């Protein structure tokens, strides 16, 4: 399903013929290189990701799209022997500035993973985890956040009677939506989604996709996907990666229907590999 037709007043749906968004560039990737040990995973990527839109990263496995995504909240810091060059800025501030505390960065950038991964806790405690680690424990606030987040993740009606049961009692799709609720609980500005539907059945996938189009009202969403149809259905802009390089980046409709590059054309028409 392509994005809804644009009305000129709405900043979220404007993409002009030049592919320039009206929204200000919220995330700027500036000559970014990245190495795992001796292996270079990302080469010289420059891109701007606009605010309150869904930007999809597509490309074959090992093309560097997930690596770039995980650099947006510096989750790659967990891995040893990594190295980078260049810079990534969010809202004008460099992620790699020595005065940046990774923890406060991550509070601004939520993340949903490929395999749903709730904590071995209750539904309630899963949702409020980010508040608790931030030292916010007021019951009234937590209750409110739980309801808002679960409603935001379109899960409230299904779980409101079993908030204090284990999260593992939910179905896979519900668990992934719980992870989304958990990621948005602390109101981040950016939501990173790493193949969020890879482990889900089609019905659950559609629910998540519908949810994403709602969420972009509030969040800047970056999604990594292998599924071209999914990119077409939900994203405003799409970036195609190959061998660690950004090959083509533009409005989704344009990139999928009239790609400029031969490599993109090959990939989306299934001739890749």
């Amino acid at each position: 399903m392509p994005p809804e037709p644009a009305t000129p007043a709405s900043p979220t749906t404007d993409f002009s013929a030049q592919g320039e968004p009206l929204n200000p560039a919220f995330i700027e990737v500036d000559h970014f290189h990245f190495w795992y040990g001796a292996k270079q995973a990302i080469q010289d990527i420059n891109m701007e990701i606009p605010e309150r839109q869904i930007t999809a990263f597509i490309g074959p496995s090992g093309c560097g799209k997930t690596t770039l995504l995980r650099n947006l909240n510096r989750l790659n810091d967990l891995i040893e022997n990594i190295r980078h060059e260049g810079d990534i800025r969010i809202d004008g501030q460099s992620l790699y500035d020595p005065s940046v505390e990774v923890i406060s960065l991550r509070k601004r950038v939520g993340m949903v993973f490929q395999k749903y991964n709730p904590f071995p806790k209750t539904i309630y405690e899963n949702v409020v985890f980010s508040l608790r680690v931030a030292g916010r424990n007021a019951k009234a606030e937590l209750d409110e956040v739980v309801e808002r987040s679960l409603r935001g993740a379109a899960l409230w009606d299904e779980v409101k009677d079993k908030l204090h049961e284990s999260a593992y009692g939910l179905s896979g799709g519900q668990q992934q939506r719980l992870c989304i609720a958990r990621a948005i609980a602390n109101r981040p500005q950016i939501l990173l989604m790493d193949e969020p539907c890879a482990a889900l059945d089609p019905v659950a996938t559609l629910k998540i996709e519908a949810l994403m189009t709602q969420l972009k009202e509030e969040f800047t969403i970056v999604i990594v996907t292998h599924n071209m149809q999914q990119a077409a259905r939900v994203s405003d802009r799409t970036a195609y990666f190959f061998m660690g390089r950004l090959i083509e980046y533009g409005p989704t409709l344009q990139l999928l229907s009239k790609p400029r590059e031969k490599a993109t054309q090959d990939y989306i028409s299934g001739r890749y590999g």
Partner: protein
Amino acid sequence: MTSIIAFGGVCIVVAVFGIFAFIFSEVVPLFGKARVEKTATVQFPVTADGLTGLDEWSQLPFHYDGQRTLRFQPVQPSINQPSQVTLPLPDAVTVTSRRFDPEHNRLILGLSDGQVAIYQVKYASSADATGSTVVKGSVSSERLLPLPPGQPLQSVDYKDAGDRKLVAVVQGQGASAKLLVASLRQSRSLLGAGQVKIGESIDLTAKLEGQHPEHVLIPGTADSVIVETDRHEIFYLFLKNSAWELRQRFRPFPGESSPLAGIDLLLGDVSLVTWSDAGDLRIFSLFVPPGETTRLFGQTKSFPALPGGILHYLPSQRNKSFAVANDQLLRICHATTEGVRASIKLSFRPVDLAMDAKSEHLALLDNSGVLHLYQVDDPHPEAGFRAFFSRIWYEGSSKPKHEWQSTSGTDDFEPKLSLTPLIIGSLKGTLYALLFAVPIALLAAVFVAQFMHPDVKKVVKPVMEIMASLPSVVLGFLAALWLAPLIETRVPSVIAIVILIPLISALIGFGWSLLPVRHRNLLPKGSEYGVLIPIVILIAWGGWHLGPILERVFFVTDAPDGSKIADFRLWWPQFTGTPYDQRNCLVVGFMMGFAVIPIIFTISEDSLSNVPPSIISASEALGASRWQVVRTVVLPVASAGIFSALMIGFGRAVGETMIVVMATGNTAIMDTNGRLIFGEFGLGHGQFPLADHWDIFNGMRTLSANIAVELPEAAVHSTHYRTLFLGAMVLFLMTFSLNTAAELLRQRLREKFRIG
């Protein structure tokens, strides 16, 4: 393949239960009662009452008719011959009192002219052609003591304690009864023991404060007499510096309707057995009561009444058992445990009891001259739940105690078999080892698994695993010969180091967290410890040298000459009232901690490392700090594995043997007579009984060390041997039940924090 694995598993289960079954089978006989079976009767050719005795083979009992005739009558007439001896008593006297000393088979006779005659019944054995034991009995005349002529003797006793020999008699009856004692002296020459001369007899009647003596006993040390008077009191007279003094006077059954009926001694002669008309029996033992300087009699035991009163009493010559009987009942009791070992209904009226030297046969003579022989099978009279787990008032002790002292050099020794101090010792060693090991091992595991740089981790983990394979005898050797003497004089240093290292490390951590991010980011993640290592070394060095200064300031005691001494080893006993041992829990806890740390570390590190990275990433992505990730996600998820690690560490510490054998004093003592640290916090001595036994500067003996030390010396199937097996069973059950409970808890934890 699976069948091979199943077979192996079944074999292990069978082996464990086989071991348990073996231990159990060794332990069960400890809790059995005595078995008493009638084996034979012997008819003496007399019908009068008399006195009887048994040889050590129980083949040739004798009967003494109370005057001049002593008859030996075989149990098996086909092997042994009956014989008869006439005692060479002076003419024209009769025997008016008699006492048989079963220890030396000595017959002490008080005569109507006031003299004392002593005979010894002797047995000699040889094997005949068929291999049967042939026993021959004879009587040797030991001596005739020419006490001053006077009234017939009502009671007589004689004891030979080598250099000192003492005879005591009660002369005359009723109001005219006199208590006389006389020492015997033996001159010694190069040619050996010379002639025995009787000293002057001393009249001690005046010492009885107006009461009249009825019965007199001499303990084996031959330095005192115990007199029962007509007013049912007991007088304890003691020979000190060749003068007799009244040490004690007491009434065993005060203010009761049934008065004292008889007194006698128990094997070892430090316990006085008294019984009343109603058959109540109380034992009084010699000990130094609190506040006194000499040993006095105090009641230590009481036994259920023998219905119908006690007519006969006979102590065993092998242990602290004794037999009492009346017209209907024979009862065998054990003094130490206050247990009734056997009760037998009698169909005849016994006139005397006898027991062989091995306490295997009991003979009861009835009034028609028939001797009823019983076989007594009671291999473990001193055992029982009471002996193993309760306080027992042992002979010579001023109060009931838990005590372990299984062997001694003498036969009349009372084995002290309480397992409680050993159990406490095991728990104490384990407690201190875990107190030291658990925080270090767990924190190290958390650090290595979640914080440390993987390159360093690759080195640290195998090194810790090599530490686990260090033979504990090496650790024990180090503890005993290097560590114990080293920290003996430096306890204040150890205290300073133990307090300073965590304190300063925590302060540095806190200070670090206050630094601006800019500075903190300079140091690569996972290498912050590099800063701490030199600081910890510095603190350890500083603490070591700070110790003597602390000692001079805080741990000062008064020397006997009035000067001040700064020595923790003197200060501790003075301050807490508990002794300071060089080989104490601190040393054991430290060294056993070293044995336990690698185990706890390795297993818990494994489970911490196995926490799925996905949920660690998830919590990091939600803005949790590394410490919050560990606390809120990693530790709960790994809790089941950590719990197993703790339990395996506990099992290792409880069962650890070599280190405790070498590094503790092996003192099975849990009785500390002081006010303790706990007392300082308002928990007075005794209010919190177990707290008295956790003193860190005491030694201990553990169940496992006890088995290792004593099993090689225990006679197979003796009570001692089986009690060591009981210790093994207690250890087995302790770890088995704890591990089972821990496993159940672990399953619940695992279920609760299962991922997915």
